[in-house]
């Protein structure tokens, strides 16, 4: 059992990452404790008040728990081919067994960890790269900006998935770490562009001029003055990158470009498809891992929408809008629409 535990360092980086306030509290070194606690509380309120955020956080916490302690939930070794083959769901095997005789439920549970590692790994790595490049481009300006911009734009237009397929085919079975590195290295450009334009809009603000007048070093200005103002964008960038990492890595594993010996949702789909799971009466082999991918992806996407809504009130669902009322005059079904609005 002991060998199956997670090395604490590897998984600890995951759950602690998404909340922004830790980073936001950073610059306030002196009174940071209070401000940090306050923004944490504000964050908590925002999460409970927004339904998308509540669902997203709940899903994510659930998956993180499963990813950290799969041994508590599933007692079987996911790779061991020790059971009768192709069993249907039963009390012993909640989801049945694969056509190799592995317990499917154990596979789903143990398969959570690699996916989470990839999601958080790519999310963090790609966001950091995007931040460095975007902020550097905006702050340095001139030729450096031009060069970094061209690199970002080029990467932005090259079709990513075919590129990942090509890289994957040369690598012959990419494990979790390689997968993280490859996806992060190719997918930072979109968020880098967003961060650059945010940093550009900050460039002539008073507090930056004040820092310059004080004679602060560039690195200090970038790390302490610029980056903290972009916390919400960084969180959004992390969530976007994590979502794409889940989808990209699962797709690559599905076509057999992942390490086939790693148990993860994408490789489950690969083996299921190769063994014609549908035709041999094992639909759960394909349906359950797919649903897990959807649920994890939805957690990231919901959180992303929620952060948008919290930060930008214009995007919140309409309750009573002038536009609708004006439109209602010209269309006959006014009463029906009013009732719908109340539920939304």
């Amino acid at each position, binding site marked *: 059992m002991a060998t199956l535990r997670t090395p604490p360092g590897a998984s600890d980086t995951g759950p602690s990452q998404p909340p922004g306030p830790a980073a936001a509290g950073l610059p306030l070194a002196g009174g940071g404790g209070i401000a940090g606690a306050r923004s944490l509380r504000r964050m908590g309120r925002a999460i409970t008040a927004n339904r998308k955020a509540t669902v997203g956080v709940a899903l994510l916490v659930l998956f993180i728990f499963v990813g950290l302690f799969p041994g508590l939930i599933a007692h079987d070794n996911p790779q061991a081919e020790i059971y009768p083959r192709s069993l249907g769901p039963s009390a012993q095997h909640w989801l049945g067994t694969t056509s190799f005789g592995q317990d499917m439920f154990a596979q789903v549970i143990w398969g959570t960890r690699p996916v989470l590692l990839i999601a958080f790994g790519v999310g963090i790595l790609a966001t950091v790269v995007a931040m460095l490049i975007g902020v550097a481009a905006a702050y340095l300006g001139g030729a450096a900006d031009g060069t970094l911009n*061209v690199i970002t*734009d*080029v990467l932005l*237009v*090259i*079709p990513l*998935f*075919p*590129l990942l*397929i*090509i*890289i*994957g*085919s*040369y*690598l012959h079975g990419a494990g979790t770490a390689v997968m993280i590195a490859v996806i992060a290295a190719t997918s930072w450009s979109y968020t880098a562009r967003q961060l650059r334009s945010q940093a550009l809009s900050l460039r002539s603000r008073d507090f930056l001029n004040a820092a310059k007048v004080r004679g602060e070093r560039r690195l200090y200005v970038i790390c302490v003055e610029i980056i903290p103002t972009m916390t919400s964008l960084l969180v959004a960038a992390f969530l976007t990158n994590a*979502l794409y990492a*889940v*989808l990209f890595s*699962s*797709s690559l594993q*599905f*076509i*057999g*470009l992942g390490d086939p010996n790693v148990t993860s949702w994408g490789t489950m*789909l690969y083996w299921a*498809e190769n063994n014609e799971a*549908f*035709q041999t009466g094992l*639909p759960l082999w*394909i*349906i359950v891992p*797919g649903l897990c*991918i*959807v649920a994890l*992806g*939805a957690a*990231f*996407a*919901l959180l992303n*929408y929620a952060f948008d809504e919290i930060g930008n009130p214009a995007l919140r*669902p*309409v309750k009573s*809008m002038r*536009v*609708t009322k*004006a*439109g209602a*005059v*010209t*269309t006959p079904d006014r009463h029906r*629409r009013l009732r*719908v*609005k109340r*539920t*939304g």
Partner: protein
Amino acid sequence: MRFVFRRLGFFLLTLWVALTLNFVLPRLMPGNPALAIIGKFRGGISPQAVKVLEAQFGVGTHQNVLAQYFSYLGNVATLRFGVSLTTQPGASVGRIILDAIPWTLGLVGVTTVLAFILGTGIGILAAWRRGGYLDSLMPPVFVIMTVIPYFWIGLVLILIFGVKLKLLPYFFSYTYTLTPGFNLAFIGNVAEHAILPAFTLLITTIGIWILTMRNTMITTLAEDYVRMARAKGLPAHRIMLDYAARNAILPNLTGFAMSLGFVVGGAILIEEVFNYQGVGYLLLQAVGNDDYPLMQALFLLITVAVLLAILLSDLATAILDPRTRAAG
């Protein structure tokens, strides 16, 4: 004019990067992949193919990297992509790809146009009746659609309509036993085989059209000229289509131009799931067989299609929207 030249320059630059990536990637990998192939098919490859492989992967040591690079660029410029190693041994890569392209264009091209038209229409209606059934149903559906892997939707549709209900075929693009020909039976068979993959593609791509159209249209609906049109008492459909939608459609149009580029390589996994013998399916065949010449040529084809489409959509924006010309 300056804008046009800049976009053209950017196009050439990205093209060069894609070509260079194709050249550099195998050289960056641990162990030269081409050496493995040549070892695997010792004697089974024609001397001509070996020569192309040498230029592409630097197997022959008698040339330095720079000379290899230029002979590789020369081969690409003259469209000499060599011959397939394993997928259809000995057949020219160009020939194989040309056979696959019509299938992809037919399936993905038609579906892309359909998704654009339907999605834009739904988006217009959703924005027009903001807060209505359509509008309140759409955002959650869209959230879910963006996170479902395309291929998995295809698999679920196969389970429902193919395996359980046995309503539709889900393997290959026509029944194997039929001889391809220009007759009603064959065309009907092809259309029947295209339903499931096309539907998968449609439901996965339609959301983005609906969403962008709806969001831009909501902005234009708040404009004064729309209020003016209402004040004048114009009929609702005229305000909706001629005043609001017409001014809101630009992002969707440029997006459409761009999506045409993704027709060639945009449905790789759907073609794979349905064993539909288009470009994407061929790419995965090549990957599975370590058929590097075929794989590289396909990657270039997919990239060039995307880059060309982006160039065209940039130019279209410049023509349709004078503001971009001023900014460029």
